[in-house]
């Protein structure tokens, strides 16, 4: 009896052992085999996904001169889940941030994710990084990620290049490529060519120990992806011309755009006042951006694309071309001009009368062009006056006005060539006529053009009726050409008629309003403009191309509130043409005057 009881007690004890064993094995099966959340947590513990940010592509000018490159900086990243008690005061003083900022940043990072890295402090300089690196082991949960920032060897081309900034939440939501903290081109070619310049991000998976020290790469780098550096851009811009233009435009509000007529390649693209593009890079960007955006002269505004000005007299050839095309104007047509006493538009120049189209262009005669315009609207012969206006507008727009030109830069305005509907709305249908809208005859009134459109018009004239969509990029990376990305457009005006307008413009530069600024050995065809505008003094405009028989450059210069076109816009255009075509400027006196005059009050 006792024996049996002892045996059963032995068995009970063995059973207790086995029960515990079974419970433990079951539990192990659950946490090791069934529940895979532990694997995930283990990965979160030990794996750190380090994005490899590629350097953005470099930017060169048409002569291979480097315009934009990169400089290394370091972003301090944080993994909130790993942050332990650290000496906040020391940490903040190293980073030169206020102590209150520490909590704030950490909370923000936690809000995003506890296990994914967030940006803690961006763009630490090499020097600060040097100090920080030695003490990194004390700051668990923090690590440093190398980045690159834009750097500009010369302080030019701010509006052309645009700037790079951090992606906004809106972009992240729309485009899965971007993650918080990524950089993206925000304006200029940085935005237009973002996908080419940015390259491709890579990913390195590293293992870290509990002290957040890197202890090697995961699976010997099997799952890593390599980052691909952005492709370089070769611009059509001539860096020297750009620099020269910016120098001339200093102290003036306005814009200069120069185009190679045969290709549509933009040679110079500037908006003034401008700023050093290095100001909008790195940690100082926010501060400087605020200063620039609050500046009353609006240095951030890209006037070349977003400035819309009445073209004034530079528009006069448009009416002549349409008149010639519609058969209402010939080289033999003469109109009378009564000088300042003319009605309804007075003439501001002293010249012969009656006069033909050449002299009319050369002397920028208002009454002549009013009469051309009136005959187009009244008797183009296709029906009603309104229909004639609609057909006039179509001709105008075929010359690259009133619509975006389809350039490769962002935020282009379309300018304005008022539609018949607009006038119907203002005056009532049937209640307006040539007289009502007479300002259009001399490029005033509702007409607005951008400096780019004006330069393009100069190119159209030099090409005798065609243009290729103006653009700033010639080639990308190793590609030879851009292919057919930028299309050729044909105007509705016959080629022959352009000869008349061009001859008028040649006379402008030799006999007319531009004769004082001739370039030695180079014939220029141009047209001045002095545009009245509701915002103050007249705008000074000039458009031209040169040399006359083999045009290499078409240019438009607009200077706000500077008075006569021949006083400021013309000499600047003339100097730039000289600079581009001859490489040097001999007329140093004019150059000096242009450079040093400040027209911004």
């Amino acid at each position, binding site marked *: 009896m006792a024996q049996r009881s002892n045996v059963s*007690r032995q068995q009970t004890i063995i059973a207790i052992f086995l029960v515990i064993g079974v419970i*433990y094995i079951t539990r192990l099966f659950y946490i090791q085999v069934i529940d895979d959340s532990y694997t995930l947590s*283990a990965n979160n513990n030990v794996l750190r996904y380090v994005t490899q940010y590629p350097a953005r592509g470099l930017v060169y000018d048409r002569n291979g001169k480097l315009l934009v490159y990169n400089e290394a900086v370091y972003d301090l990243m944080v993994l909130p889940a790993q942050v332990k008690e650290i000496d906040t005061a020391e940490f903040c003083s190293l980073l030169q941030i206020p102590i209150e900022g520490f909590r704030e940043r950490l909370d923000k990072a936690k809000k995003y994710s506890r296990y994914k890295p967030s940006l803690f402090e961006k763009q630490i300089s090499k020097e600060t990084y040097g100090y920080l690196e030695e003490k990194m082991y004390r700051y668990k949960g923090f690590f440093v990620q190398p980045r690159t920032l834009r750097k500009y060897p010369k302080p030019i081309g701010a509006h052309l290049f645009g700037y790079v900034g951090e992606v906004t939440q809106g972009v992240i939501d729309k485009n899965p490529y971007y993650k918080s903290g990524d950089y993206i081109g925000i304006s200029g070619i940085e935005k237009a060519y973002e996908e080419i310049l940015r390259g491709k991000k890579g990913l390195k998976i590293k293992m870290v*120990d509990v002290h957040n020290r890197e202890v090697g790469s995961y699976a010997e780098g099997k799952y890593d992806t390599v980052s691909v550096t952005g492709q370089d851009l070769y611009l059509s811009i001539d860096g020297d011309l750009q620099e020269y233009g910016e120098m001339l435009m200093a102290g003036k509000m306005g814009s200069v755009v120069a185009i190679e007529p045969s290709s549509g390649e933009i040679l110079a693209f500037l908006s003034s006042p401008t700023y050093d593009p290095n100001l909008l890079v790195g940690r100082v960007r926010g501060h400087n951006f605020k200063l620039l955006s609050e500046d009353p002269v609006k240095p951030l505004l890209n006037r070349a694309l977003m400035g819309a000005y009445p073209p004034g007299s530079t528009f006069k050839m448009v009416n002549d071309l349409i008149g010639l095309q519609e058969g209402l104007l010939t080289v033999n047509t003469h109109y009378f001009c009564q000088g300042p006493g003319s009605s309804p538009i007075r003439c501001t120049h002293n010249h012969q009368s009656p006069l033909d189209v050449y002299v009319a262009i050369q002397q920028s005669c208002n009454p002549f062009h009013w009469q051309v315009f009136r005959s187009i609207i009244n008797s183009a012969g296709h029906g009603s006056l309104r229909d004639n206006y609609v057909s006039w507008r179509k001709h105008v727009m075929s010359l690259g006005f009133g619509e975006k030109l389809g350039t490769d830069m962002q935020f282009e305005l379309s300018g304005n060539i008022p539609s018949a509907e607009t006038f119907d709305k203002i005056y009532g249908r049937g209640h307006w006529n040539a007289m009502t809208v007479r300002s259009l005859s001399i490029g005033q009134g509702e007409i607005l053009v951008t400096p780019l459109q004006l330069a393009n018009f100069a190119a159209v004239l030099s090409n005798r009726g065609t243009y290729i969509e103006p653009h700033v990029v010639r080639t990308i990376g190793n590609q030879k050409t851009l292919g057919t990305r930028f299309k050729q457009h044909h105007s509705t005006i016959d080629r022959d008629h352009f000869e008349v307008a061009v001859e008028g413009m040649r006379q402008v530069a030799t006999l007319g309003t531009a004769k004082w600024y001739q370039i030695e050995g180079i014939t220029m065809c141009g047209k001045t403009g002095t545009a009245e505008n509701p915002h103050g003094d007249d705008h000074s405009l000039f458009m031209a191309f040169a040399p006359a028989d083999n045009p290499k450059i078409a240019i438009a210069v607009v200077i706000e509130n500077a008075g006569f076109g021949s006083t400021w816009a013309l000499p600047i255009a003339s100097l730039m043409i000289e600079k581009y075509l001859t490489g040097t400027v001999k007329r140093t006196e004019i150059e000096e005057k242009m450079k040093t005059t400040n027209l911004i009050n």
Partner: protein
Amino acid sequence: MRERNNIFSNIDWQITVLYLVLVLMGWLNIYAAVYNEDYSNIFDITQSYGKQLIWILSSLFLALLILLTDARFFSTFAYLIYGFMIVLLLIVLAVGTEISGSKSWFQIAGFGLQPAEFAKFATNLAIARFFNQQHLNLSHLNNRLFPLVLMGIPAILILLQNDTGSALVYSSFILVLYRMGLSGNFLLAGLLVVLVAVSTLMVGTTYVLFLLIGLAGMLFFFMKRNRKNIISLVALLVVAIGFAYSVEYGVDRFLGDHQKARINVLLGKTVDLKGVGYNVNQSKIAIGSGGFFGKGYLNGTQTKYNFVPEQSTDFIFCTVGEEWGFVGSTVVIALFLLLLVRIVVLAERQRSEFSRVYGYGVAAILFFHFTINVGMTIGLVPVIGIPLPFFSYGGSSLWAFTILLFIFIKQDINRNALL
């Protein structure tokens, strides 16, 4: 020479091999747990795995010494050894060094020695010696209380050293007492105590009250309804309810904040992955991420990169779980179960009561360590810092467990000797 041949022909190879396998596995896992490429030599004695090798070799030497000692030495001097250990425990209380909160170490020539580890086998010897008396009449109250006193003295002294885990080990002798005739009701009562305590802490007294009444009702329905049974049932119910309330009161009143926190984390009532729950959470992550086959030897990341604290001592099982997966964990558990069952089987075949009781004591102590240690790494029992026998890094514990086990092996070799 005859003596020695006798030893090796009579030694139980199963236990000996199990011991060697566990010690070797422990060593390899300690190496993996703190693996560092700068010190990749497993024999490097500046690293814990190199030191563990010294402990292993010296343990084998100790084992050999024990095998060569006369088996009767241990029963004869059981009380003396016990007394000596009690004195050591007293001395360490007075002049010991405090390491991580426990004042339980002698610092000798750079090595720490923990008397509490050795007190276990000494107590086991004393208890075995006590039960070895012929004509022991257990119906005498004194005879029942004496083993409790033998267990209680070292337990209290160790508790005073602030080493709760090692003190709790002495409760494992309840298995020995059960084998020696203690009513099974005590085991049941113990189980009931644990169940009531845990459920009280988890769901509160109100639910436990309903639960107990419901349980009693069911028992009433099924049992033989005589007067005696009904009275016992009611008494049991009252005691259980009273216990539930006193658990709540006791935890509230007597436990320190960090003990309460540990209990709450274990019961899943609070999630505190940064503080108290950190160890257990990281331990579970390490084991759980091992998967079925494990990450492979030396490929563990959680232990190697120190996410798991105490990864070579109390949490050594994490390395097993992470690198050897479910398969390896199961093998280790199976090896321990085999060892325990083998000890019990051997204990049962002893002719001397001393050897049998001592054997059960060995099984009970190893079982307690195994259950608590593995249980805490997989989040089934509270974190109580006691080592996994033969596995965990540490000289004192390896020596003590080796002595504990080999005294029994020696007794077993001599089982046929004349009493």
